[in-house]
């Protein structure tokens, strides 16, 4: 940055915290509107059923009930939007309430509105739905069979799309290979489980034709546009407000039926209508993540050089498409080669429909899957080729001087020093000593495993050419007459802390304190149209838009100051609320005076307009590609299969850092979610499509004691893509950690001949692998499931 960085790079305490630690923040459900009614949804208990009839009479007559609606009553509302553009994607439209067929457990079939939560809950049980259960298809591989039940009767089969990507000469690679190594890996379905369930509040003011929607969302503007389209209501009359949001992880990067239903009902009933998701609903009908199966096939040289990779990925999309559902697996495809030189590559993706809730973006969205597939494979390859996993990785990593690096999938990696991150991680974890300790302990019957993962991810989504609904971001920065700075961002942070990091950037530019800066987000009537917060884009893309505004404002301030000081603006500097001559700091003018001049507009230089406001719509020229190496050390209990994390070292390179405290928080939180995926989490369905992990009593997310002390380090390779040099870090932890953890457990069992295990590595799965590998008949070296 051209300006002196007094605040950027410093671990400032967050500006958003005082309200949050005192219970003074407002999440949607905390907002009180006079006379607000409560909406509830009657949901299908069947994964696949024909709805024969719905009897609403009893519910309608129950105390406190104002309305009961079925699909018939909401025909005017358009379908749930899907923005993903995939060639030849089969149609699988979802309406806000199921018409004649329910296609997953939890799909809404009727809506009830009552005066309060208690009456509502009573009335939901009184809606009588007559279902005819239909055969459900739950397993994505079975869904591909010819005789499988079809999720959508109108389609010929359950294949939603096939997508291919090829680069380099794969045939040649396989011809020249010394070895062909194959591995099948699954990345199980997860439930995002943000702490705040979704919540919606809608108000219609007929006099003003104003429809206001408060929603716990990551994408206020996209939501506004889509709601206007679904309800056929003028977008200029729709006001979306996203107040405090209790976590999203992608699950709130979507448009859901309840948002449209609440708006529709608020208009119909003339009273505000709110809907608050229960945790069970959150598990059943907020998007799920991952759920991909990969068949990896490598062409390798005996010395470990990778020649080619053929990856076949089966992605379980669920019953319908949410906003980005079909797109997510293609991100896996783009990143499948990881941080390696793989000259030829072919990815074949099959998106399949099943009778389950849709999958969509969950923290990392396609990249954790890609990284897991390639990094798990690297350890597998190392074992097959009898090489050290570190050396196999190092051998195939492009060197720093090779960047920008064009991958066989057609991406241009901006910049990197993979070896640097790897070396630092090995040093911090004392790798060589660790290996010696491991060998010594194994002799004593203690099974320690060391797992490694070197990752590259794709962030700062992204150039609009590669994004379904635009990849730019907007900002307006305004210096108010009193000298307060207002930053209006199209991004929609919900826990990441950009109220602080954006204020740090603004404070440095304008020469004020971060306390003088207010960051506004989430209110579509206040901030310019924006894309939202996801894909580790808020700082790198949203922050750059702000950067550009600040540049313009600073130049304008200097121009006015130059005029007032009668000196050349280029010789001036702005710091500590003062503008002064660089070579003679005593010659200065107070910032307030310059701001005053901008607003009173009596002494402005020629050609300078009054006011101090700048707006920017920033279109990034490329993605950014953060990278790093994580190392995990685990111990396995030979008797029970129990696993214990002994040590965790993360080295991440997210480019330049604005606030290290926030980066640390993102990395640690992401690793914790990986620990969840690796050891605890899995959405388990029975054969009929019932979600058996439908509450927190059966779906385990990590608790404090499940997480080891995380030692986190950074290398800094600024990206040339944006002037902040920042790449994004929101998802790095979930991307880097998963393979490191699984590799560690497999390594702990390596002496038994175990080469691969599928997640989640619950005690029993590990125990079974130990038993099977130890059993004399089982034959060592076999894969175990």
């Amino acid at each position, binding site marked *: 940055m051209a300006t002196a960085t007094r605040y950027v790079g410093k671990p400032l305490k967050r500006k958003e915290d005082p309200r949050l630690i005192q219970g003074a923040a407002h999440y949607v459900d905390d907002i009180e509107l006079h006379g607000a009614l409560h909406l509830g949804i009657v949901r299908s208990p069947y994964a696949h059923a024909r709805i024969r009839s719905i009897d609403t009479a009893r519910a309608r007559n129950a105390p406190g009930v104002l309305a009961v609606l079925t699909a018939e009553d909401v025909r005017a509302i358009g379908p749930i939007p899907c923005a993903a553009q995939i060639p030849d994607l089969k149609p699988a439209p979802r309406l806000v309430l199921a018409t004649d067929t329910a296609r997953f457990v939890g799909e809404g079939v009727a809506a009830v509105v009552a005066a309060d939560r208690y009456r509502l809950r009573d009335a939901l049980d009184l809606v009588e739905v007559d279902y005819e259960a239909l055969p459900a298809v739950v397993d994505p591989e079975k869904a591909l069979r010819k005789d499988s039940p079809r999720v959508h009767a109108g389609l010929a089969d359950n294949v939603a799309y096939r997508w291919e990507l090829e680069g380099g000469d794969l045939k040649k690679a396989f011809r020249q290979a010394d070895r062909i190594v194959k591995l099948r890996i699954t990345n199980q379905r997860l439930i995002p489980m943000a702490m705040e369930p979704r919540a919606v509040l809608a108000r219609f003011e007929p006099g003003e034709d104003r429809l206001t929607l408060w929603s716990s969302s990551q994408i206020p503007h996209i939501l506004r546009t889509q709601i206007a389209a679904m309800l056929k209501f003028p977008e200029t009359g729709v006001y979306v407000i996203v107040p405090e949001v209790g976590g999203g992880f992608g699950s709130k990067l979507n448009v859901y039926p309840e948002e449209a239903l609440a708006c529709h009902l608020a208009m119909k009933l003339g009273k505000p209508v709110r809907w608050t998701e229960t945790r069970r609903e959150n598990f059943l009908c907020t998007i799920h993540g991952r759920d991909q199966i990969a068949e990896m096939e490598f062409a390798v040289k005996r010395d470990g050089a990778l020649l080619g990779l053929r990856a076949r990925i089966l992605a379980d999309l669920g019953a319908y498409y949410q906003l980005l559902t079909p797109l997510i697996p293609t991100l896996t495809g783009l990143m499948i080669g990881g941080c390696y030189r793989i000259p030829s590559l072919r990815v074949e993706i099959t998106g399949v429909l099943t009778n389950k809730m849709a999958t969509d973006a969950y923290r990392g969205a396609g990249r954790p899957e890609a990284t897991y597939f390639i990094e798990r494979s690297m350890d597998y390859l190392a074992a097959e080729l009898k090489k050290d996993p570190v050396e196999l990785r190092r051998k195939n990593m492009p060197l720093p001087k090779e960047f920008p690096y064009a991958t066989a999938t057609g991406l241009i990696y901006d910049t990197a020093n993979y070896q640097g991150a790897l070396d630092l991680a090995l040093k911090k974890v004392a790798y060589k000593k660790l290996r010696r300790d491991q060998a010594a302990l194994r002799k004593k019957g203690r099974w320690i495993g060391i797992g490694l993962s070197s990752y590259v991810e794709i962030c700062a989504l992204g150039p609009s050419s590669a994004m379904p609904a635009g990849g730019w971001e907007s900002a307006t920065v305004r210096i108010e007459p009193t000298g307060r700075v207002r930053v209006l961002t199209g991004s929609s942070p919900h826990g990441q802390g950009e109220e602080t990091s954006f204020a740090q950037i603004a404070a440095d530019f304008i020469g004020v304190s971060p306390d003088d800066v207010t960051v506004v987000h989430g209110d579509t009537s206040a901030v310019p149209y924006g894309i939202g917060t996801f894909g580790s884009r808020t700082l790198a893309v949203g922050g750059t838009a702000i950067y550009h505004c600040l540049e313009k404002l600073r130049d304008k301030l200097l121009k006015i100051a130059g005029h007032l000081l009668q000196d050349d603006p280029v010789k001036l500097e702005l710091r500590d609320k003062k503008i002064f001559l660089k070579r003679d700091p005593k010659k200065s003018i107070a910032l307030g005076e310059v701001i005053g001049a901008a607003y009173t507009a009596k002494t402005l230089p020629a050609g300078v307009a009054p006011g101090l406001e700048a707006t920017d719509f920033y279109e990034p020229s490329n993605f950014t590609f953060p990278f790093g190496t994580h190392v995990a050390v685990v111990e396995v209990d030979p008797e029970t299969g129990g696993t214990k994390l002994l040590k965790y070292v993360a080295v991440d390179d997210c480019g330049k850092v604005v606030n290290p405290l926030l980066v640390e928080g993102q990395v640690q939180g992401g690793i914790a979610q990986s620990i969840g995926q690796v050891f605890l989490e899995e959405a388990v369905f029975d054969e009929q499509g019932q979600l058996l992990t439908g509450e927190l009593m*059966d779906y385990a997310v990590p608790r404090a004691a499940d997480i080891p002390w995380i030692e986190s380090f950074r290398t800094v390779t600024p990206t040339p893509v944006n002037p902040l040099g920042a790449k994004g870090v929101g998802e790095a932890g979930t991307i880097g950690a998963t393979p490191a953890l699984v590799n560690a457990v497999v390594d702990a069992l390596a002496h038994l001949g175990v080469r691969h295990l599928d997640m989640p590595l619950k005690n029993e799965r590990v125990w079974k692998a130990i038993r099977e590998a130890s059993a004399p008949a089982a034959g060592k070296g076999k894969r175990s499931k």
Partner: protein
Amino acid sequence: MKLEGRYTLPAAPAAVWERLNDPAILAKSLPGVESLEPDGPDRYRARIQYRVGAISGNFVGTVELSEKKPPHSMRLKTSARGAPGFFNGDGRLALAAKGAETEVRYAGEIQVGGMLAALGQRMVESAARKSIEEFFQVLAASLKPSPG
């Protein structure tokens, strides 16, 4: 989930068969059934108040006998729905004389949905086994000559 097992009843197959086809006995033996009303041949409408410990729920549904081969085998289907969700049971009963007694082998499938599937997961199988056990116990009691 699949369940199977066997139970010995203190009477000859013919007597057991008769009991199994008597709606009054069925209503008494099927756990939680409060009433069975005929709804076509070998088909009944059932009101069920199911209870296990502190857990309880009201259901309405059907009980159906089919594929009858007297006195050897039949298929017994129940399906019921209520606020806590639904459950379906579909089982085959095979009767075989074992001395003066009858051994009933059963094999079938239980399916639950809704809240029952979510919370009850841990207990559904146990509760189902318990229900089958109760069913046979009551049936057995009905076959014993009443004292006096």
